[in-house]
């Protein structure tokens, strides 16, 4: 019975998407949800599940858990916290993959196929029919990274309590780390900035700046859009970037302050 309800629900959602849904468009490419469904069945279903709820066959073995598309909550966005992502945000996530998770880069798929997947993923939640995506955050030009900028970032890292999750030295072992969960109650690990690994939502300084503004919805990482000025966010970006550059970090002799 529950299965039937889910099937009917999914079918209705798809009908709604077809009838009222926003068109999925990235550049000149227009998404086709029907094609996207076939691709989803081939590539995505075993993690994200047939109903897009993140309960695929492999989900129990994955950490972090696959995204639940029915909630329309996405970590990697260019839009403010609590708003829907742009099509390009979903497209970029599919293309880039999500580092430190089971989600690989799907760049080997055609661009059109990735756009089709975006179109289909949007059918799992009515939110994409009822709401518009948020306005993308503005990213001002980046000032040069200097020892002073990094030092200011280190101070902000302390005063903004980043260290409580990410740890004093940015290794992801802050005092709150062990208690953190995502929005579905699954344990979640703060990012280790010293690892030199690719960041989940893009690896450029602009990507990190954007993450500070938007936060990562569905995780404990909040938005610092109003808590810091743009210059301060750049300082934090420079400091975080320095954490994986161990030689630079040692040379600058940056000490945690204000603990």
């Amino acid at each position, binding site marked *: 019975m529950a299965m039937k309800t889910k099937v009917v629900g999914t079918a209705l959602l798809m009908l709604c998407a077809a009838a009222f849904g926003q068109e999925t468009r990235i550049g000149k*490419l227009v998404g086709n949800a029907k094609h996207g469904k*076939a691709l989803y*069945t*081939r*590539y995505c*279903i*075993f*993690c994200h599940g047939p109903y897009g709820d993140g309960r695929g*066959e*492999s*989900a129990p*073995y*994955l950490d972090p858990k696959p995204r639940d598309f029915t909630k329309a909550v996405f970590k990697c966005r260019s839009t403010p916290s609590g708003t829907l992502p742009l099509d390009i945000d979903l497209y970029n996530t599919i293309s880039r*993959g*999500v*580092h*430190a*998770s*089971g*989600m*690989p*880069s*799907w*760049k*080997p*798929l*055609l*661009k*059109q196929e990735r756009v089709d997947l975006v179109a289909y993923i949007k059918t799992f939640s009515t939110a994409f029919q009822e709401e518009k995506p948020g306005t993308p955050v503005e990213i001002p030009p980046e000032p040069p990274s200097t020892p002073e900028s990094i030092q200011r970032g280190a101070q902000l890292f302390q005063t903004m309590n980043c260290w409580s999750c990410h740890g004093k030295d940015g290794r992801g072992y802050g005092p709150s780390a062990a208690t953190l969960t995502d929005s579905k109650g699954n344990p979640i690990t703060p990012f280790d900035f010293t690892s030199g*690994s690719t960041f989940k939502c893009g690896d450029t300084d602009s990507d990190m700046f954007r993450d500070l503004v938007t936060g990562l919805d569905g995780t404990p990482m909040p938005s610092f859009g109003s808590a810091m000025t743009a210059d301060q966010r750049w300082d934090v970006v420079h400091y975080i970037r320095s954490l994986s550059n161990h030689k630079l970090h040692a040379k600058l002799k940056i000490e945690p302050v204000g603990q």
Partner: protein
Amino acid sequence: MQKWSLRWIGLRCLISAVAITSIQSAYGIPAFARKYGLPCSACHEAWPMLNNFGQRFKDNGYQLGNDRDAPIYQEPSYWPITFRTTPTWHRENNNRQAVDAVPGNPSSGLVEASVTTSGFDLNGLDVVTAGTLYNNISFFVQPFISSSISVNQAWVRFDNLLHSHWLNFKMGKFELDQPISQERSLTLNNTGAVYYNYFFTPPGDHNAFVGIGLPQLGVELSGHNNTTRYSVAVVSDSNGGTGLPTNQAVDVYANFNQSFEAPHLGWQQVGVYGFFGESPTYFQTSGGTPVPGTGQGNRGFYRVGAYGHWYLQQFDFYTFFMHGFDDAFLGNGVPSNQPALLPSGATGPTWNGGFVEAHYNPNPRWIILGRYELVRMSRQANPNILSTNGNLDTWTVGYRWYPIMSPRAGLAWLQEYSRLNNIGAAPLSGKDDIHSSYLMGFDFDF
């Protein structure tokens, strides 16, 4: 004519035997699916045939680039091993086999007769263990168990040297970077399991090289980005056989291909390849018996060609062309230290061949396939040989259905029919020698 035909049949039988016993059934690797939590269909158009995502995964040294790549992250219970076997029922027919006129009486003379056999069978057991030993060090070991145990492939690869996708170094026994993978052929039946062009040598030819379809022993340098791939391999002149090679020669194989995106159709790929080698024409002997590894009087040969892989949404097809050449001494089976034995007008044989293989893959659980392949001699080694001798046509149709396809195991039901026409090669009459195979069965992988 009859003498040549009998030699040709003998050689063909030898090549077929080598090919069929050396080419183990192809593989999908559920061990990877288990490791990454992905379904077979993520990497395979229909296993064992790779799709573009699977090819990139393979090119990148069995690494996806996410946090599940390194062995250090694996659970202790994870065992990177896969088993594959294929219980089947098959029927084989040869329309003109030479048999005794009175069965059991060899003095009754030979006649040609249609011979049919059929029954249940098992294609041995493939064991594949593969993955990453360490970050950017990948490996692959594939023992094959039937009445004996052999090692079909065993290699280690150093990936992304100097942090570049363009530098990957492999050593061991490996499948050449073939235009279309023989190891990943979707067909398993006796007649249609091999790409004949990969193993072709002309009538009367004594080239020791069996073909690019066999895994070879040597080293390979390869590289790739999202659209371009290359590989250059230097291999022993031993057809992948362990122990002493036939001689000291090494052969070179190179492959280059370029992909491009056709919106709404799929990835399209074109490529060129070449195998350039030398084969001994005689051996040092002891009491008339060749001493292994002492091949001498090397003479050259090559196989070159071009290919494409074309997607039209749910249809895709391979196109493949090969041009082959063997030196006159190889082609005539004459030791190069005895040129007087060459027949008048002897020359290096050349031929052209190719195939088209089409697939219809409406969803990950179904694939329907058809293949047509041919070889045409363009120049015989000996002008006295009939110009069509050696020509062949073969076609195959079949389908595979995958009722079980999970990150843990895969099961396919398959049916195939193949027909091979060796033109003018019947052992006694010189008429067409036709082989056909029908096969049905299960192919499972876990």
